[in-house]
């Protein structure tokens, strides 16, 4: 399999020989940029885009002061991250609104990108914002595409305008718009058939629809898993239809989603939404900064932190973080932490958000993310006495045997857990000495902490 190391650990390798130097030399940067380049290419960012990007970052990185608290690797990642975010549009972009309603939105894209589903999701999002959208079924080619939109519309109680599959999509769009005007809809979402960007006849049809309904938004739906060709697709659609924005679909997969960057780079149009799941309400505003770290293989730390902030008691988290740093971590804390983590949702989804975790998960057979396994771990810890939890060193052979019997597990499992717990503690100790006394505090510190630990290929005890 393709075992991708995380960019941060790769950069650490590059810079490990840099100790003692005060500045990052050009040669160091060149070597580091090679790693950055690979990371971006592995994420499916288009190679031309990568080339320009690297040139830009290189300029900034040469002559960097190596400060004490940060490794040069971190500083470079920071620059790369910022530049990437910038490239993807900086801040969020909002949906256009027509001066005179209805606002017309046209959905276009390749086959199977997810136009119909996204249309439904978008309608639902608008409805939630107290709008009155109308869906127009303009895909007359794919069997049952109209039916799909009707079912979607029905499930969220939004009307779907359809004229069957014997009328030209141009007519359908025109009549749909009229229907919206007559019935007081303030948004019209026109679903169109998927087509190849090189299919002249079908592209002409889109142009016709465009000319007739004069849309305020032309949204290109792009599959987040698209490879290098994303550039050509986006460029071609943009040239012919003047896109106003992009929707990234299927972003809930384990793709790094470099296509996002490519598309933005060639069209110059912002990515307005990201589809994050199969449920009808799984359409979210796009966050460039999160996408940047995802493309770099650094996980979606921000989303994770956001989730954590919603689910975790801030005080407890701060205390936990202090304990982690001072390596006072006990089995009691461990148990508590497990509980907290469980509150955040299904474990495999959380793991995906952690830097490097996605790959570790698929790479290591012994680290199956199994909720039942979690239960077993919990049982083991709960079978320890208070004193044992506080001071794991007490756990000699006979105590371990008792714990195994008490938790219904085997002594091998108990041993493994204790071993992993010790490793984890050691890691924390190392890490806290790395951070120094002036290390960042609070959640931010926790985040860096996680990164440091994961960079060393850490195994979670569960």
């Amino acid at each position, binding site marked *: 399999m393709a075992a991708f190391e995380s960019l941060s650990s790769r950069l650490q390798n590059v810079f490990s020989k840099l100790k003692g130097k005060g500045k990052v030399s050009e040669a160091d940067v060149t070597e580091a940029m090679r790693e950055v380049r690979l990371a971006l290419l592995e994420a*499916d960012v288009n190679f031309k885009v990568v080339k320009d990007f690297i040139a830009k970052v290189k300029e900034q990185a040469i002559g960097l002061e190596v400060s004490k608290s940060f490794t040069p690797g971190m500083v470079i990642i920071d620059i790369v991250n910022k530049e990437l975010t910038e490239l993807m549009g900086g801040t969020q972009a909002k949906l256009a609104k027509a001066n005179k309603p209805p606002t017309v939105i046209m959905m276009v894209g390749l086959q199977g990108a997810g136009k119909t589903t996204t249309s439904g999701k978008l309608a639902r999002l608008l409805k939630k914002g107290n709008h009155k959208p109308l869906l127009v079924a303009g895909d007359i080619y794919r*069997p049952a595409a109209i039916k799909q939109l009707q079912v979607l519309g029905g499930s969220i109680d939004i009307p779907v305008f359809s004229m069957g599959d014997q009328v030209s999509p141009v007519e359908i769009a025109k009549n749909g718009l009229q229907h919206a005007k007559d019935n007081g809809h303030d948004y019209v979402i026109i679903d169109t058939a998927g087509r190849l960007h090189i*299919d002249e006849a079908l592209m002409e049809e889109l142009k016709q629809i465009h000319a007739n309904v004069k849309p305020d938004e032309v949204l290109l739906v792009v599959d987040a898993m698209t490879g290098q*060709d994303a550039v050509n697709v986006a460029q071609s659609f943009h040239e012919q239809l003047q896109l106003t924005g992009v929707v990234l679909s299927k972003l*809930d997969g384990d793709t790094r989603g470099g296509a996002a960057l490519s598309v933005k780079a060639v069209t110059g149009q912002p990515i307005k939404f990201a589809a994050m799941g199969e449920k009808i309400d799984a359409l979210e505003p796009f966050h460039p900064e999160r996408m940047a770290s995802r493309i770099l293989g650094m996980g979606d730390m921000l989303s994770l932190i956001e989730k954590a902030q919603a689910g975790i008691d801030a005080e407890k988290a701060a205390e936990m973080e202090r304990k982690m740093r001072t390596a006072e971590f006990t089995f009691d804390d461990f148990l508590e932490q497990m509980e907290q983590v469980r509150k955040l949702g299904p474990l495999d989804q959380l793991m995906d958000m952690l830097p490097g975790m996605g790959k570790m998960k698929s790479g290591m057979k012994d680290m199956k*993310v199994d909720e039942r396994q979690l239960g077993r771990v919990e049982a083991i810890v709960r079978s320890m006495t208070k004193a044992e939890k506080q001071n794991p060193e007490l756990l000699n052979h006979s105590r371990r045997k008792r714990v195994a019997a008490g938790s219904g597990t085997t002594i091998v499992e108990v041993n493994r857990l204790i071993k992993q717990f010790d490793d984890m503690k050691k890691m924390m100790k190392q890490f806290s000495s790395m951070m120094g006394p002036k290390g960042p505090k609070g959640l931010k510190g926790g985040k860096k902490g996680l990164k440091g630990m994961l960079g060393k290929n850490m195994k979670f005890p569960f």
Partner: protein
Amino acid sequence: MSFFKKLKESIASKAEAVTNVFKEGLTKTRTAFVEAVEELITRRKKIDEDFYEELEEILIGADVGVNTVMTLIDDLRAEVKKRKIEDAAELQPVLSEKLVELLKGDDHAELTMAPPGETTVILFVGVNGVGKTTTIGKLAHRFKSEGKSVLLAAGDTFRAGAIEQLEVWGQRVGVEVIRQASGSDPAAVMFDAVQAAKQRNVDVLLCDTAGRLQNKTNLMEELNKIFRVIKREMPNAPHEVLMVLDATTGQNALSQARLFGEKSGVTGLVLTKLDGTAKGGIVVAIRNELNLPVKLVGLGEGMNDLQTFDSVQFVHALFAGLIKREEEEQESAQG
């Protein structure tokens, strides 16, 4: 005899028509990939770091995986050193040979079929929107026109309109679809379908499933259940588990192939939408890293646009430009 000549002769026995289908369907792939390499060789006379870098970019640009490309480039460097090649033009045959080697493979692209008189069960899996249902429609048409009796199982009970989509295909092709209500357990649909296939003694049963992203644990378990149910009801089945892959997919295809393989024992790939993209390089990456053969390719939207994948044909179509040129050179050398 030159390498390409050999290649050409090996396909001479095959129908010209099939070759043409491949040639046409792969026009885009060919221009993007082969011509870029040619252009690079003529433009850059010398083999230096820039040359390698540009070559790397061309290959990566065709979605050949990063790992695969790195290996290829390293091989090339070694070869260049060994043979003391300085001129880029001299590198061309070496490069072509390596590329063909990567694309070729001794896999049998033919679908595994049950012995005559028994039902062949083919299960289709893949992420959302790759073209599973359409592929099933096309394949049903193909089996039907070969005179086989076909049954379809509407296993996508999740996506709105998916069952109807398969039913439309069923009507078009003239085969029956086993279905349940939308939202029902897909494993139950498969159970029904396998029973029906046994009773009616059909030749081929094609099973559709809902598209799912490979990192969704519960959905992948559901797929595993479908697989188990089929296996339990008919011990030799499924005879093929085909993962349908959109040809525009990037590096994520590797993750797809791996995880679907784990849960449903994928035996081969169907590469769809190959006609419109400049890509297809991901086939090389998948073959190289996961050793899964491509069995079918979708080269267009028509009912007949599903072809058995033939790596020799594929290579020939891809390198048509190179082959032609070499022939001309040989002719002029002889004449």
